[in-house]
């Protein structure tokens, strides 16, 4: 039966190696043809693959063969003497007889490789788009800061984590004074510019780990972890002083700040607290800070 049908005629590479050294004991013609190798005594099968494939063999193929006795449909690359490397699909299994051997089937897979390359590109493209959408869905278009939704989500997580470690947080609610008048007197374009610049200014004056967002029309919020070098009150006063000193779009812009500080309050409690304090700052005549340590009541 076998004498009639030659293994050399199979249009696929057939190889038998030892398990331990992976020394080639038998290989059909097709294997030598595709790998552009000459039969050589003592040659090891690893030599026909490129460097990346060697990592895949050592990290996936061999552990699978040793653990479960087979591996299927692993794509590897033959390093040939010609310029173009040849993608191949490898199936292998361990056969235990007098000595442990590996039977390999190595099929060329150029077309499958092209298809996979297209799929990889498609997936990378989708991944990039998803990332862009993710960023867009979290960003306030006008100022480039986080939007309210992203702020609530990130701040909630941060404070939940912080509470476990007894961290103290400051919640600043910052509202531009008389913003409606700015819009009415100077137009919406100027109003938008004022919002943009106040946002930029807050961004450049807050720290990398602060969470800063535009959470409403002319309302900004910042959550910061209280650390030693600058108290939240100092920070708020600095914001007020610097803004008073600077004209934006030729207009004198001031803000009111409600500041709630706590190492116990949840995000919702801080938010509500800062909102009430901001309201008090407005009632007391605007352009000022009203703050409260919520843990001292």
């Amino acid at each position, binding site marked *: 039966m076998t004498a009639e049908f030659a293994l050399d005629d199979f249009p696929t590479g057939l190889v038998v190696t030892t398990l331990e050294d992976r020394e080639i004991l038998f290989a059909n013609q097709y294997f030598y043809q595709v790998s552009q190798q000459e039969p050589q005594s003592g040659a090891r099968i*690893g030599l026909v693959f490129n*460097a*990346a494939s060697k*990592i895949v063999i*050592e*990290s996936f193929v061999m*552990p699978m063969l040793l*653990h479960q006795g087979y591996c299927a449909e692993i*794509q590897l690359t033959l390093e040939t003497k010609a310029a173009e490397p040849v993608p191949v699909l490898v199936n292998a299994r361990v056969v235990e007889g007098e000595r442990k051997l590996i039977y390999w089937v190595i099929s060329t897979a150029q077309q499958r490789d092209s298809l996979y390359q297209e*799929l990889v590109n498609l997936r990378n493209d989708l991944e990039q788009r998803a990332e862009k959408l993710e960023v867009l869905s979290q960003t306030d278009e006008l100022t480039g800061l986080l939007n309210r939704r992203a702020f609530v989500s990130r701040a909630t997580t941060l404070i939940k984590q912080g509470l476990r470690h007894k961290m103290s947080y400051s919640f600043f609610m910052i509202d531009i004074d008389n913003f409606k008048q700015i819009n009415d007197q100077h137009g919406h374009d100027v109003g938008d510019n004022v919002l943009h610049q106040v946002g930029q200014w807050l961004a450049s004056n807050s720290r990398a780990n602060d969470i800063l967002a535009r959470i409403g029309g002319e309302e900004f919020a910042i959550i910061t972890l209280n650390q030693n070098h600058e108290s939240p009150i100092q920070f708020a006063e600095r914001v007020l002083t610097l803004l008073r000193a600077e004209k934006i779009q030729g207009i004198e812009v001031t803000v009111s700040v409600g500041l709630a500080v706590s190492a116990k309050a949840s995000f919702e409690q801080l938010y509500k607290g800062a909102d009430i304090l901001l309201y008090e700052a407005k009632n007391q005549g605007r352009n000022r800070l009203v703050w409260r340590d919520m843990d001292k009541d």
Partner: protein
Amino acid sequence: MPANDDVIRRNNVQIIGSGQQVMLMAHGFGCNQLMWRFLTPELINQYKIVLFDYVGSGASNLEAYSRQKYADLEGYAQDIIDICTRLDLQNVVLVGHSVSSIISLIAAQHIPQRIHSLVMVCPSPCFLNHPPDYLGGFNREDLTELIDLMDKNYIGWAQYLAPLVAGNADTNFVSNELAESFCSTNPITAKNFAKATFFSDYRSLLPLNNHPVLLLQSQTDALASLFIGDYMHKHTPKSVLQVVEAKGHCLHMTHPQQVAGHIQLFMQSLPPGKSTV
């Protein structure tokens, strides 16, 4: 940091054996804790063996996976630190395969008081060539090609693509497919591990070692050449180098008896551990 109770489930921690001294075995890139099953029978009578899967491998809890955390070997080292801390392990012998040798070294430097010694099976501190002084074995192009090959060997396309197309890339990105397969080339977890492993360079960490180290080197290893074994030995204080009469990168799977023998001799040469779990 995870809540204490989470670590055991998160890392699929398994404890076997009844010995006095604790041996924690860390699998390498590509597989999971099952790769230790050939070696553990050789050591189970003398040691209490702690096995685990890194988050993102094997039957770990994939909800705990973070691309950012596990983009560096420090993230994987934190898994070892968390397990040692959670179980309050003392005098631990850390056994790491391949990249886990370096991960163990990082962990040992964070919790030196808990560590007795390190056993490194086929280690390499850096897979990239930095000629003329250091030949890690691979060029940057080889490793870029590796990432490409891993993409083409990924089986669970559908599970991965579906949430991505739905604009839900963050959540539930990995299915249980990982738990069921011994090796995984999942495009997020395995590729991230590949990048952390093969593009890193931890040579500068070796001289900082302060624990006894056994280096087990294979005669012929496509991933860790004899040069690398020598390099590790020269630059790691308190290290002993043993070249095992064998070929391949998985000595603990192919030659468990020899590996266990070298570990026993190494342990006999050191003062014994004082306490247990």
